[in-house]
């Protein structure tokens, strides 16, 4: 495995340094932490924090900025950051109106955020948590992972917070967004961790792994590799039953890290052709990756007027500008 890196043990620090060095007018790193925040905060705005293990770039630091996150916490690769890091982010993001932490549904992340909430509470900071679990590959909703749909929830929640809405209002919107967003992924190759020499799983040349998460874990099912159109059908068949009929949709076609944009656009074409629904927005690109994995995830979001408004709202982050 060849990677563009120096010491694999320091890769997170190096990439955060690079991100801030390249975007110094927009971002800063809280000293002594792996927390990236806006350079300036908006007084009395509800702070929006997210974070998790690294290896999912541009998530989450790439989404820090006006209209989206106030602070992002970067853990080691695929490892939840500790509660102390989440606490630092909450402290920084709190501008007097409380903080909402958006967390992907992984045990480690949830536990660390809960600890951080308790610590923040002890300091008089109100911190609420909303757990994102959009991955329909897992049946049990308790166990469902947070994958690419996360960034749509972050986008809308961040936009709403920017309007000056209260913590309880922002939390309500985030929960509604979570209830209306569903995703599922397919891997064509595994990924390889910087500090590890072997790929996260073995996959034969003619196989694909269906229902993977974003941490190189094996999927729900392994089968013969299929065409883009067939994969679109497969993912739609799993996702659509959970999407309210009639609602206009936003579609997110997300590359897992090493799938070319050309392929993602081919796949988006197949999804749009097969999706006989009112599609108001289509996003295609790398939004939530899994290191150098090849593959794709499909996310559908059932819009209503409120969600549509906040999805369209301006946003100024490194990765998402509109």
């Amino acid at each position, binding site marked *: 495995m060849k990677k563009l890196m120096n010491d694999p043990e320091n890769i997170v620090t190096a990439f955060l340094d690079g991100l801030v060095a390249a975007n110094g007018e927009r971002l800063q790193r809280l000293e002594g932490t792996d927390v990236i925040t806006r350079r300036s905060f908006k007084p009395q705005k509800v702070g929006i924090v997210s974070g998790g*293990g690294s290896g999912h770039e541009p998530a989450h630091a790439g989404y820090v900025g006006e209209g989206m996150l106030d602070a992002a916490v970067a853990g080691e690769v695929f490892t*939840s950051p500790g*509660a*102390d*890091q989440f606490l630092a982010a909450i402290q920084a993001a709190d501008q007097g109106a409380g903080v909402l932490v958006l967390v992907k549904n992984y045990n*480690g992340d949830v*536990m660390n955020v*809960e600890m951080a909430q308790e610590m923040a509470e002890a300091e008089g900071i109100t911190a609420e948590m909303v757990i994102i679990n959009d991955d329909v590959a897992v049946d049990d909703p308790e166990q469902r992972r947070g994958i690419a749909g996360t960034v749509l929830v972050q986008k809308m929640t961040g936009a709403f917070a920017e309007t000056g809405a209260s913590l309880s209002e922002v939390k309500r919107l985030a929960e509604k967004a979570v209830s209306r967003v569903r995703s599922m992924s397919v891997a064509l190759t595994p990924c390889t961790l910087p500090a590890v020499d072997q790929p*996260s799983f073995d996959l034969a040349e003619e196989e694909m792994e269906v229902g993977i998460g974003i941490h190189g874990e094996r999927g729900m099912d392994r089968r013969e590799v299929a065409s883009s159109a067939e994969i679109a059908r497969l993912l739609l068949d799993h996702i659509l039953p959970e999407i309210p009929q009639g609602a206009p949709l936003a579609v997110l076609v997300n590359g897992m890290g090493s799938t070319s944009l050309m392929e993602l656009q081919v796949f988006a074409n197949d999804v749009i052709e097969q999706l006989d629904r009112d599609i108001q927005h289509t996003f295609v690109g790398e939004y939530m990756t899994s290191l150098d994995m090849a593959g794709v995830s499909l996310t559908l979001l059932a819009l209503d007027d409120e969600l549509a408004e906040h999805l369209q709202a301006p946003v100024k982050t490194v990765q998402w500008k509109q």
Partner: protein
Amino acid sequence: MDSKQAKQWMQKTAIRMEAEKDELSALDQALGDGDHGVNMARGFRAVEESLDEWDELSLSQLMQKLGSTLVSKVGGAAGPLYGTAFMRLGAAWKDVHQVDGEAWMSGMAKAVEGIAQRGKTQAGEGTLLDVWSPVAATFTASEPDWKKIEAEAKKGMEATEDMVVKKGRGALLGEKSVGHLDPGAVSSYYLFQELANLMKAGE
């Protein structure tokens, strides 16, 4: 156990986690995301590097520091779980300078409670609690039987192989999680094995 022995325990455990790093990660590759060994080794390396700084601390403070360092440096799921356990030990041993059977018994009960709360879990769900819980139950008011404690830790660790994992990443595999040792249980076994060896040597 006094604070000197506690520090020896941390040191031994740090060496052990480093040595078992690859094996623990390999176990986690089967049930999870393959980083448990790396996480534990990183966490205990940080502990080891802090030991000098912690020289003046009481036993209770030491456990607090150990806990918060593991939360911060292990990260993931294991960080808050190990961290909570040791922070509960620290709270339970507020005025204890020498941990006797009774202190172990009450402290470990608190630690196990902490893990269960933090992890929203109970014994039998194929996690590190399946080592911590029987170990805690083995302590009595009298002098700890370190051989028995080690044996119980081992039994608890081995038992996870036959369990359907109900918590953590392994839970996603459902029935397919049977047949694999839980990595957190294995690292917990090493922790208690190092403790038992140390205490037996001191006897």
